[in-house]
């Protein structure tokens, strides 16, 4: 039988085994639900948050409405104005959250009630409107023709220029970066761990020896990594699709436009990271003598995954730091750091091809090294092996 046919058979068994497990289905559903919630909930909450609802109490206050609306136009604030019948109504509406501000006038003094605090912006807006209304009244009483004066009052328009404008979706980018890094960390730990425990099971149950009577260690290893990797990619694709569909339905538009770059690059980095970590985890799984030792050999390998995730917070704080650019080129840290940096948008054109080259070279080296350890250690009896001891062993007939 040809090697591709054997690898397909082995990968097929791995996929069937994982899809049979209820855990995998639940995990996929839970992850998809989490992403959908993450996409839709901020969109729903932020829907009406920037509009200030102003209730006007009494006829003199209600006469202010046109002025208030003009001021709001000029300051680009959103104001929703309604009339309130009584102070009791106003207070009830304020406490129930149907109103943000209730305004009443008594002669030259105005009174404002709010539930908790009056924001500086709203206070300024109200003050400006009151001043304008008061000025009109005073001018009218002094016999000044308003039609001549008013255009002069609004003749000066303000233009603002930002020297260093912040991207409008900075917060959303940071959230996307953290989400990408977290998802990468969880996925690689999960599927890498699945490879390690699968190998460990075959070794400790001695199934490996029956398998090796029919296939080469390299075929067994390749089939296992391919099978579990495909299940992982499939799950991530389902989660990503759920997120995109939810976003389309809610029109939340909180996802930055860079998502169309982020999504495929995330999947590519997952693929590369998975190959790097899965082969390392497979070799680790082959070293142990008892299933309980698995955690012990896996922990040092999983450490860079955690570090990569934690460094994303540093990347958000100082996206242009040189040390971060250097660290994100290190193969064990790349899978979490690079997609996050892509999401943040501070990445130079040469960084991705450079990282791809480094990544490919290190995956190649890892496959060579791990396959050798795996082949040597897989049917080795006795105590748990060290990495160096496993490399030196040369028991197996057909290593790699």
């Amino acid at each position, binding site marked *: 039988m040809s090697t591709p046919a054997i690898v397909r058979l082995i990968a097929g068994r791995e996929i069937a085994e994982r899809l049979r497990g209820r855990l995998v289905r639940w995990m996929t559903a839970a992850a998809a639900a989490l992403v959908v919630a993450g996409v839709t909930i901020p969109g729903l909450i932020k829907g009406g948050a920037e509009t200030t609802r102003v209730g006007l109490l009494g006829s003199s206050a209600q006469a202010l409405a046109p002025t208030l609306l003009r001021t709001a136009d000029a300051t680009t604030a959103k104001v929703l104005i309604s009339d309130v019948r009584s102070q009791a109504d106003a207070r009830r509406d304020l406490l129930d959250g149907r109103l943000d501000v209730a305004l009443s006038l008594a002669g030259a003094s105005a009174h404002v009630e709010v539930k908790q605090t009056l924001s500086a912006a709203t206070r300024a807006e109200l003050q400006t409107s009151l001043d304008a209304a008061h000025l009109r009244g005073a001018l009218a009483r002094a016999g000044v023709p308003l039609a001549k004066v008013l255009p002069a009052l609004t003749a000066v328009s303000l233009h603002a220029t930002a020297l260093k404008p912040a991207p409008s979706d900075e917060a959303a980018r940071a959230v996307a970066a953290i989400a990408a890094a977290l998802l990468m960390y969880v996925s690689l730990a999960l599927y890498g761990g699945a490879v390690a425990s699968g190998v460990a099971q075959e070794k400790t149950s001695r199934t490996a*020896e029956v398998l090796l009577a029919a296939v080469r260690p390299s075929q067994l290893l390749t089939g296992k990594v391919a099978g579990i990797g495909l299940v992982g990619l499939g799950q991530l694709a389902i989660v990503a699709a759920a997120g995109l569909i939810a976003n389309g339905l809610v029109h939340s538009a909180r996802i930055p436009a860079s998502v169309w770059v982020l999504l495929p690059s995330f999947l590519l980095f997952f693929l590369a990271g998975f190959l790097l970590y899965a082969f390392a985890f497979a070799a680790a799984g082959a070293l142990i003598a008892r299933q309980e030792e698995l955690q012990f050999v896996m922990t040092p390998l999983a450490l860079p995954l955690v570090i990569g995730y934690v460094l994303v917070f540093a990347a958000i704080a100082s996206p242009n730091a040189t040390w971060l650019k250097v660290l994100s080129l290190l193969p064990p840290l790349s899978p979490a750091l690079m997609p996050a940096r892509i999401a943040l948008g501070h990445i130079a054109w040469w960084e991705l091809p450079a990282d791809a080259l480094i990544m490919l070279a290190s995956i190649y080296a890892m496959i060579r090294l791990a396959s050798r350890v795996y082949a040597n250690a897989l049917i080795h009896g006795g105590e748990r092996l060290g990495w160096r001891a496993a490399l030196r062993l040369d028991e197996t007939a057909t290593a790699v």
Partner: protein
Amino acid sequence: MRGSQAGQEIAPPSADSGPALEVSGLTHRFGEVLALDRLSFEVGAGELVGLVGRNGAGKTTTMRAIMGIVRPDHGDVRWHGHAVGEADRIRFGYMPEERGLYAQMGLAEQVAYFARLHGLQADAARRAARSWLTRLGLGTRMDEKLVALSHGNQQRVQLAVALVHEPELLVLDEPFSGLDPEAVDSLSDVLREQAGAGTAILFSSHQLELVERICRRVVILDAGRMLAAGTLRQLRERFPAQLRVKVAAQADWTSGLVGVRVVGSDEDGTLLELDPSADSQAVLSAAQSAGPVEHFAFESGGLIDLYRQMVS
């Protein structure tokens, strides 16, 4: 026949067309330990050969080397005259000493999976798996997980995995260990039947009476070297015949007999070893002249006795 310096091959190849499996000069070290030392033997098509020896004699390493799981430092394994390759090994069936299968996989699915790894198409693999499981008495439990089975039944599944692709060579490491007498008989029947159909079979066992009953030939290992190989009769001929004589008299009647050595003496009589040149009739005459002869018989020379004589 390849002569080995360490072991003394006696038997000529049994099959007319030459041996199916040839192991020659197999040498392997694990660190300081010499696990195999210039080991050579053969197994013919349709022949059942028993591999015998104490723990650590090299039986498992020999079998792993044949299956390509261990690469020996020196020596080679040949199949029908050529160096054994992957295309040959896929038609070998193997049952390792430490049994191992997927605990959470269904029986039929599992056996069919191993059949496919050995080159069977999906349909043929499913059919063969079901037919072997039925044959081994697990027909009603096809869809159960392996872990739900008793130890003995798991052993049967392991056997089904070794047999499912109709191998041309069966290599079974301690296939009888842990089996009840009934299962031993049914496994013996299966092995005889497979050999009858032309399969070359090599199996190891500590149960020497079992090996004696089933095998035509045995290979005896000790500390990685071959002590002897051949049919039981050939092995017997290598050792001086042992004669037990009981005479109802206390007198020493053995002195003066040529080619005869006294091994020991007790209430069952005197145990003598006779050189090929010695004349048993002369021994009888000498005994009769000493007194009434109550017992005069050759010892059976079973495999256990031979084995003890060899390793002592």
